[in-house]
């Protein structure tokens, strides 16, 4: 089975944070980037061939993924390939939607002649065993299996909802139904029998009935054509971090000692690419509580219920509370940061304040400079 991670979106709901980088490359939890979860799930599930489809500001994502070795995805005749737009004799190949991105990269998929293709999204925080889903797909003799998350009926109107029969076969798909009939929300995770999907895609583009999106176009077509389509329910921590609010929320949940994601589980490790940075240094004046700190950090201030990513410097007298600071940010002295996300390489000058509220998280963009410049040392 080959996996395709759709990592392409502009992620414009993340505002400043994704101005110059792709959403899956956004840092998470002090030591990770969002895509690490999908890539680690692949390795842990025995999926060793992964295409990462991306077209928006891919530099940082490329530098992060490199040859996939950090996630064990660098085997011979397998590995990670980053798939960006390109030109062919037929013209430019841009990606217009989830299904279209797969259509445009058919040649890549066919290099491996897979019987099954696993479609994933690159911007969810979760740990999932795709092999279990794959076994379900084979047991059900499905043509398509959709990963679904049971949500509360109250939340259901916000999702694409799968209505199933008693065999878990999907009989109806409703996008954001006002009156949901079920609570099974699509996670944007699909296992397709590749030859079948390929035929549907080729036919659709041959006939101008272009299937651009899996939710809008492909699933309805599968249901209409009576393709055996099943829902596979996932139980566990799952978070879409597509907005500032949800990204902050997920980071705060990550801080909880007993949070359901269980990052410390040695049976299901989450891998990432790491540089060899010096150990963190907590000075005489520092107070660090209820916090996560990683290598390369220098902490002279107070850190409370916050996450510091790699190489973050915090000067004396500064207070960081309920916040997430991304790698290489430099925070001067006597700064107050509260309910905030500070972007990579941002510089917060001495005495500056970055204060948000639980409902309106403050954001400092990548490389943004606030207040007067501080000594980077």
């Amino acid at each position, binding site marked *: 089975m080959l996996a395709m991670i759709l990592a392409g979106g502009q992620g414009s709901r993340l505002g400043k944070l994704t101005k110059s980088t792709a959403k899956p490359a956004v840092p998470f*939890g*002090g030591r990770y980037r969002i895509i690490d979860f999908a890539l680690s799930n692949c390795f842990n599930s025995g999926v060793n061939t992964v295409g990462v489809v991306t077209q928006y500001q891919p530099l940082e994502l490329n530098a992060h993924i490199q040859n996939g070795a950090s996630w064990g995805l660098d085997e011979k005749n397998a590995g990670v390939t980053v798939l960006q737009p390109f030109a062919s004799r037929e013209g430019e190949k841009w990606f217009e939607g989830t299904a279209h991105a797969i259509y445009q990269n058919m040649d890549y998929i066919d290099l491996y002649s897979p019987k099954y293709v696993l479609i994933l999204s690159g911007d969810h925080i979760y740990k999932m065993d795709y092999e279990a889903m794959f076994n379900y797909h084979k047991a059900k003799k499905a043509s398509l299996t959709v990963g679904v998350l049971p949500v509360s009926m109250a939340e259901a109107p916000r999702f694409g909802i799968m209505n199933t029969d008693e065999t878990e076969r999907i009989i109806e798909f409703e996008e954001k139904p006002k009156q949901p009939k079920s609570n099974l929300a699509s996670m944007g995770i699909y296992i397709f029998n590749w030859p079948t999907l390929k035929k549907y895609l080729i036919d659709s583009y041959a006939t101008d009935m272009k299937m651009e999106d899996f939710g809008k176009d492909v699933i309805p077509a599968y249901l209409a054509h009576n393709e055996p389509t099943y829902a596979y329910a996932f139980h566990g921590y799952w978070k879409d971090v597509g907005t500032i609010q949800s990204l902050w929320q997920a980071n705060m949940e990550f801080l909880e000692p007993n949070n359901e994601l269980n990052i410390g589980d040695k049976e299901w490790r989450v891998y*990432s690419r790491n540089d060899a940075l*010096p150990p963190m240094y*907590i000075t*005489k*004046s520092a107070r660090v509580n*209820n*916090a996560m700190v990683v290598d390369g950090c220098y902490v002279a201030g107070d850190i409370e219920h916050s996450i510091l990513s790699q190489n973050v410097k915090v000067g004396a007298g500064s207070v960081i509370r309920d916040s997430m600071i991304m790698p290489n940010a430099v925070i001067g002295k006597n700064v107050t940061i509260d309910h905030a996300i500070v972007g990579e390489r941002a510089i917060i000058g001495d005495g500056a304040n970055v204060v948000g509220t639980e409902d309106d998280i403050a954001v400092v963009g990548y490389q943004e400079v606030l207040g007067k410049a501080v000594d980077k040392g």
Partner: protein
Amino acid sequence: MRQNIISAIVDLNEPDEALRPLTSNRPVGTLPFAGRYRLIDFPLSAISNAGIRDVAMFLPKSGRSVQDHIRSGNSWNLDTITGGIFTFPYVAEKDYSDPVNRKRYYDDYLTFLRKSDSRYTIVIGAGNVENINIEEVLQFHVDGNNPITVLYKRQDPKTITPDEAALNISEAGDVTAILKAKEVTPDAVNHMLPMNMGVYLMRTSLFIELMQNASEQDTYASLQQILSEAVEVYNANAYEYTGFYSKIDTVKRYFDANMAMLDEANYQALLFSQRQIFTKNKNEIPTFFAKSSIVNTTLLGTGSHIEGRVDNSVIFRSVKIDRGAEVANSVIMQNCKIGPGSHVKYAILDKGVVIGAGLKIEGTPEQPIIFAKGASVLHEADIDKGVQR
């Protein structure tokens, strides 16, 4: 074009008696240092930062820890398509009155020197904390008058023992001999001694000549002896190294060097210099500081979980310090656990030491108490497992 300008020799067979039990199952070169390094990271990073890609590594008896750490060498850019790390297995038969063993000793060096095909060779130890700019040393050598260059660090005579190797530097600034410290007069102004760092740079052709000559003798001379004699014969350029330096040859020096990293100036100068210190990457979760934790003036690796109090200490990866535990002035290596309410002071806990609840472990600044790898200290009586020396 990209030439093999310079290659390096690192010998991991260094005297380790005064570091036991820390070196009972590892050479000096793989002693953990400063929360996430091994001592050998310092020479290998210097080598890597100078663009050197040909390295001979003489493995010690306990080679496992070296190979586990170095692996393919990719952490130091030493897994390239040309060059790479050339390991020489440990030689148990060290009876050099036997000409076969003697020949093998010299042949190992000669094999590497001839194969590396580089113009210069640097010999560098694995047991020092230092951050040498080898490119600068090379330039200094090329500009110098003598065929050998030796590195030294000015040190306070009070901090060294009388038998340690120092340089005898002539008025013209040349090294004329390598002597014992007690045989060298401190400089008049600062009363400091130019201590030999054991780092030598010379043309590979001269090196080959030296080893060739030695191999034709009837008596055995070690590499250090050969180099020392060569300095007397040829004289050497004296390169003064001015950065952080600590020769790790006793427990006390090991302990002090770790504590020295808690001085912010040393931490910044050694670890955040332009010449990065590379080490093997480990995939670890962030270190978690609980609501109850109090941590000050401390270096920590990742993956640790701190509920208690830590002062003036070096804490490696994946250490667990329970609620109410207090650690001060100590070096706590990877995977140690300190139980609730226990106090640990002036201690060195090797990897995986487990301290139970409510215990009191205390050494002195002069004689920190050491617990060997994996020691289990669950009861009062187990504290006797600790050694002070």
